[in-house]
């Protein structure tokens, strides 16, 4: 077995026993990136020297017996999480040369824990998209089939984990952007409860929806990475002061007796679900039942309207958040313009890609005089009803079981021309962002073309414990998460 194939839990055990060093682990991942990433395009920036320096520091932490479960573990970071001194582009031309003057809270936490940052991963520009094709920098290919998308917007992070180019990665999820690429790349991805992970230093898209989440090879690793990044941060006013449980301590294979699985009626009736997806989900539910869980019929009547509410709220928040990119304090500036207003207009139009400009226009329209009540206020009221739907559902069940995406990863170039179709693909994921509840994607099958399919597990606010329990037990009983893409160099 190659070092890069290890899980975080396995690598940590070997590091602790001093059978391997973090420098060896890090070199193995960097060599892997060097050999593969030309074909995959997961990384915008590979931080070789920084990574090796961090690895040597980690090795001295271990030598002094001061290691944590993440010490010396190479982690990749989605390129919209600020890393001091390390370029952070948001996959946008407008931030192509931006070097953050500070670390995001999650980066500070990872550094404290002794983790190794190997690089910054590709994404849809400003996290707007579901395929990573909206990156202003490069295309990312799915490790399972280079002709297919990796999903998005955290497509680079998911592809990097799937191809063993890191042991875990951070993504961000505004409407499914951690869970959907995790599903498409056959890895585990968690969107935590809103407020569990600080957004300080996360470049904002939709501030009331955004949440940073871990992407890993299995549920146990996911819990370890979650432990490393979660917690109260006074620098984010929406950060939760509720004491957080140790997610890793609940990881045990004790079975699922007494666990109630909510199966939403509306999700089964949704049009356009690929047969391979419904079949994989049905089989997964069967596995969970044999582990002792019971199915309960639930209803989420506002499912269809949640998509509409989301595609008002997210662009409105985006149009406001992205007003800061005006060529004045940082980022790209069109220097051919002589007046301030002309410079700002030209800078923004040259710097932002199509999808970003489309969402800014949509959000600005919905917030403009005369339309606010009809769109933003109405959508925010529907959001209240979506939250009530989930509240009622969780009176009857512990977790909700659902697909992540209606279809497996599609070929590159197939979905970019029709924005509305792309938005409808988020139907199973975006409600969790509107409601602020946590959700995970874990591998549960493959399409007939061999593309991975994810199972979504949702739970109530601050109840990640229930998700980890179901996911870990499912992984003990199945081997979908152990399957690896066949890559040329293997």
């Amino acid at each position: 077995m190659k070092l890069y194939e290890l899980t975080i839990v396995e690598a940590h055990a070997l590091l602790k026993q001093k059978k391997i060093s973090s420098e060896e682990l890090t070199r193995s991942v960097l060599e892997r990136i060097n050999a593969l990433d030309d074909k995959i395009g997961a990384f915008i920036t590979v931080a070789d020297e920084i990574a090796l320096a961090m690895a040597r520091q980690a090795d001295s932490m271990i030598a002094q017996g001061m290691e944590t479960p993440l010490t010396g573990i190479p982690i990749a970071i989605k390129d919209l999480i600020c890393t001091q001194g390390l370029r952070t582009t948001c996959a946008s031309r407008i931030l192509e040369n931006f070097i953050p003057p500070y670390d995001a809270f999650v980066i500070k936490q990872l550094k404290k824990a002794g983790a190794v940052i190997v690089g910054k991963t590709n994404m849809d520009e400003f996290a707007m998209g579901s395929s990573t094709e909206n990156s202003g920098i490069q295309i990312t290919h799915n490790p399972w089939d280079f002709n297919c998308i990796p999903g998005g917007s955290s497509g680079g992070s998911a592809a990097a984990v799937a191809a063993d180019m890191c042991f875990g990665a951070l993504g961000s999820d505004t409407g499914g952007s951690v869970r959907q690429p995790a599903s498409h790349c056959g890895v585990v991805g968690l969107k935590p409860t809103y407020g569990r992970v600080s957004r300080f230093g996360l470049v904002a898209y939709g501030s009331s929806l955004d949440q940073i989440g871990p992407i890993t090879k299995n549920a146990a690793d996911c819990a370890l990475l979650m432990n490393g990044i979660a917690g109260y941060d006074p620098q984010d006013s929406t950060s939760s002061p509720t004491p957080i449980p140790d997610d890793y301590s609940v990881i045990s294979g004790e079975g699922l007796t007494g666990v109630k699985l909510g199966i939403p009626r509306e999700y089964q009736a949704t049009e356009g679900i690929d047969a391979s997806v419904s079949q994989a989900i049905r089989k997964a539910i069967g596995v969970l039942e044999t582990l002792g869980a019971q199915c309960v019929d639930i209803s989420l009547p506002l499912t269809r309207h949640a998509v509409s509410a989301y595609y008002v709220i997210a662009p409105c928040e985006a149009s406001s958040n992205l007003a800061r990119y005006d060529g004045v304090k940082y980022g790209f500036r069109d220097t051919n313009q002589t007046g301030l207003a002309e410079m700002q207009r030209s800078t923004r139009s040259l710097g932002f890609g199509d999808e970003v400009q489309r969402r800014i226009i949509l959000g600005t329209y919905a917030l403009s005089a005369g339309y606010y009540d009809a769109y933003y206020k109405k959508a925010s009221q529907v959001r209240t009803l979506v939250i009530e739907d989930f509240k009622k559902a969780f009176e009857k069940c512990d977790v909700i079981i659902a697909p992540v995406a209606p279809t497996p990863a599609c070929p590159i170039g197939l979905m970019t021309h029709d924005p509305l179709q792309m938005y409808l693909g988020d139907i199973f994921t975006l409600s969790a962002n509107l409601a602020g509840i946590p959700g995970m994607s874990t591998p549960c099958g493959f399409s007939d073309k061999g593309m991975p399919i994810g199972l979504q597990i949702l739970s109530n606010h601050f109840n990640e414990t229930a998700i980890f329990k179901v996911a870990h037990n499912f992984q003990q009983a199945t081997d979908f998460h152990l399957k690896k893409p066949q890559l040329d160099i293997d």
Partner: protein
Amino acid sequence: MKITKDEVLHVAALARLELTDDVIDQFAGQIATILEYVDTLNQVDTQGVKPTSYATFRTNAFREDIKRLSLEQDTALANAPAQEDGCFKVPKIL
């Protein structure tokens, strides 16, 4: 729901975007389609429903008003496209 070219232009001006004619036409069509879909929200009865802006129901997060260190001036200016005498420099306004 129809969106006119003028409406797109008006919104683009508000958002400080400069769109080409092709893009204006394209956006007008696409945004009309999206809004047509979004208009189904009107089928939901929201009479008396309070709007939600944050889903985890925190109210204001207060802290003591204490002086704290912030970014140094040089650090804050390090990414500026243009600077002069410790300030961000922009093209002329008037």
